[in-house]
């Protein structure tokens, strides 16, 4: 983009807007992970803390869900990749009319909504289980198994698409050559076709792993009473959120960033090696720099930084700062209570409700009572109905007050 083609200020502004739209939420979420406020927010900033990571790891439901998700994802990879490969091979061998039919059949699960797949999986295996007289403890009614079965039905199709794309670039003459040179069909497959499909196997495994790990709408049905990472996360958000989810976001973003950077290093290195400009390149020609930009080195460095940050984080103690905040809050609360008590007394003493000093005091004080003491507060037709002479010990709990529930007994405990 340059000025000649109408770039300049508009384009830069648009790009800025676009990127803030993309990354703004992520950046804010990352910041909230380090704020000690028990609700994820940036302002008011209270204390820098790493305790939310601890809260995250202490959440049994989330952690056992994570383990389940990993087990399911690995199993899905192990099953869906071979099925996808078999499907792709079958498609590439068939006559064109049969291929169109089989392709439609194999691709359908992707087009069916995940919810339908989830429900139909439970219904199907349940019916099958009952028809063979299986008990409710058997695998027909096991959330892990059903999730695996449900996910494999459509994730295999993803794997198949990856393999199909790669197979289209395979020259079948190579298989013929292998056969002609004395290889059996099995040897030709293992030694010629499979190595060619190597990169596709990698991508298919990665894709199926992610598709399984992040799947929600099928899994939420098939997991039954159990939990995967996504379902545990969803139910946690539903029950009220706290910054431990931001902490999780920080971890996920960190892993993604490391992965992306290492992958980029790998791609660049391969490109340079392929084009053979390595010796002439300023970076790749220098032995030290060359080692430094090797993907493995890059990974080790980044992992080291992440590890160091985590270690530093575990040593960080925000308790002093938090105590300070707590004391401030208590003092403020006390102050307000005092003020209120004083006003109540004044109110009882004076029979005439409206005096100019009281008016001034009411306006100056942004009180939690929503201006109940303002002169027009009790006038009819006013939008806010004033809380009529609340009992002095109750206002904090009854009101959605700016104290953030500081007066509730559990208000300062990290919520689950």
């Amino acid at each position, binding site marked *: 983009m340059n000025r000649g083609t109408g770039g300049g200020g508009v384009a830069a502004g648009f790009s800025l807007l676009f990127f803030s739209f993309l990354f703004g939420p992520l950046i804010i979420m990352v910041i909230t992970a380090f704020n000690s406020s028990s609700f994820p927010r940036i302002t008011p900033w209270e204390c820098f803390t790493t305790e939310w990571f601890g809260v995250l790891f202490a959440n049994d439901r989330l952690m056992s869900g994570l383990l389940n998700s990993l087990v399911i994802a690995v199993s899905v990879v192990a099953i869906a990749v071979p099925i996808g490969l078999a499907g792709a091979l079958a498609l590439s061998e068939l006559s064109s009319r049969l291929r169109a039919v089989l392709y439609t059949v194999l691709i359908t699960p992707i087009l069916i909504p995940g919810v339908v797949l989830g429900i139909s999986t439970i219904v199907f295996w349940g019916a099958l289980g009952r028809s063979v007289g299986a008990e409710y403890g058997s695998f027909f009614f096991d959330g892990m198994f059903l999730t695996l079965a449900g996910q494999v039905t459509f994730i295999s199709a993803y794997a198949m698409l990856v393999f199909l794309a790669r197979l289209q670039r395979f*020259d079948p*003459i*190579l298989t*013929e*050559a*292998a*056969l*002609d*040179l*004395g*290889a*059996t069909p099995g*040897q030709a497959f293992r*030694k*010629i076709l499979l*190595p*060619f499909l190597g990169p596709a196997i990698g991508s298919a495994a990665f894709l199926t792993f992610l598709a399984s790990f992040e799947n929600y709408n099928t899994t939420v049905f098939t997991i039954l009473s159990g939990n995967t990472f996504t379902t545990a996360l969803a139910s946690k958000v539903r029950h009220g959120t706290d910054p431990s989810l931001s902490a999780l976001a920080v971890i996920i973003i960190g892993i993604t960033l490391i992965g992306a950077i290492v992958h980029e290093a790998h791609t660049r290195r391969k490109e340079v090696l392929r084009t053979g400009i390595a010796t002439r390149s300023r970076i790749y020609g220098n032995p030290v720099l060359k080692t430094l930009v090797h993907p493995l080195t890059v990974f080790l460095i980044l992992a080291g930084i992440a590890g160091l940050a985590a270690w530093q984080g575990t040593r960080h103690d925000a308790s002093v700062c938090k105590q300070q905040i707590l004391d401030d809050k208590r003092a403020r609360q006390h102050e307000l209570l005092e003020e209120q008590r004083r006003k109540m007394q004044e109110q009882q003493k004076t029979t005439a409700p409206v005096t100019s000093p009281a008016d001034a005091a009411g306006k100056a004080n942004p009180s939690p009572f929503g201006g109940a003491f303002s002169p027009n507060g009790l006038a009819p037709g006013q939008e806010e109905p004033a809380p009529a002479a609340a009992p002095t010990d109750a206002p904090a709990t009854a009101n959605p007050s700016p104290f953030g529930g500081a007066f509730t007994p559990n208000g300062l405990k990290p919520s689950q």
Partner: protein
Amino acid sequence: MPGAVSSGILPSVFPVPFSRLSESSMATRDIVLDHVSIRFGAYTAVDNAHLVIKGGEFFSFLGPSGCGKTTLLRCISGFSEPTEGRVLIGGQDMKGIGPNKRPTALIFQNLALFPLMSVADNIAFPLEVRGIGRKERRKRAEELLEMIALPGVGDKKVHELSGGQRQRVAIARALAVEPDILLLDEPLSALDLKLRHHMRTELRTIQQQVGLTFIYITHDQGEALTMSDRVAVMNAGVIEQVDPPETIYNRPKTSFVASFVGQSNAIEGKVASQSETLVSVETPLGRLQGRAAGGRQYKTGEDCILFIRPEQLSLGDGLPNAIEAKWVKEEFEGNARQMFLEANGVPLRLSRVNLGGTADTLSGAAMPVGFEPDQAIVLPHGVLAGA
């Protein structure tokens, strides 16, 4: 890759004698195509091919693309079975024997080297699938690399080699199985002209050294004629003629062969009379005389074509078979000049050895030409190449 592309550096004779291979392959193993027909549905790709290829022979199938020569080759190598007839190798019927069990090795048009393997692994692949150990494989690969005059490239990837080097690696890989018959499917078509010419000699040298039967498929008559012991000319699935190259060129048996192999002036006409071997033909250019192909007896009035090679047409008055032609244009080809003439609507081509000097522009000028009756050949009317 220094050296490989410039053919001058290539040794024309491979330095290492191919002792092991020659022992096993000198045993004569004839290939018999016994009335082989190959059909795909209603389409006949090969029609009743019947010939014997002798062991140790350099045999070429020559024909335009789509003439069925590659189909026939795949049938010999075992990728397809004949619809009718039999393929016998060394007296054994090959029916039901797969390509991996036949004593043949095929060099594909695009060479089909395995892109993910190193050069040495490519060459050792046939040994690997036969369960030969890594060390032995490596040793054999090195030997073969030395044979094809490419020592030390074993660890390179295939794409790092030049076209000519790949060519030779493909040959080495095919020879690693110690086949009795090497089948080559237009292996030189991807090379540039100079390398192609060099590889012709090289292939011939390898063939003579190892004593294998080479069956060579090509549409390039230059390749077929320079390398082969015998050539089979194919057209539309039919083998038109099987003969040594000189016979194919000098004594074509059909009008297709006469028109496909080399340049020819084809003059259509009707037989006027025949005396012994000479036939008089009534043509638009007058009555011309030529030799009857294969001592054939013609009926008077029969449709025929008289073929005369451009180099056998001479300029000048008072020649036998005199034709009054007009000059149209001239093309310079370095070693020769092609003169394009026209006589009574029939285009004629006359080629002369270039002895220096420049071409004159003689548009429309009268050019009397003629030829010895013995140089022309009279064939029954039939399909012409490119017609």
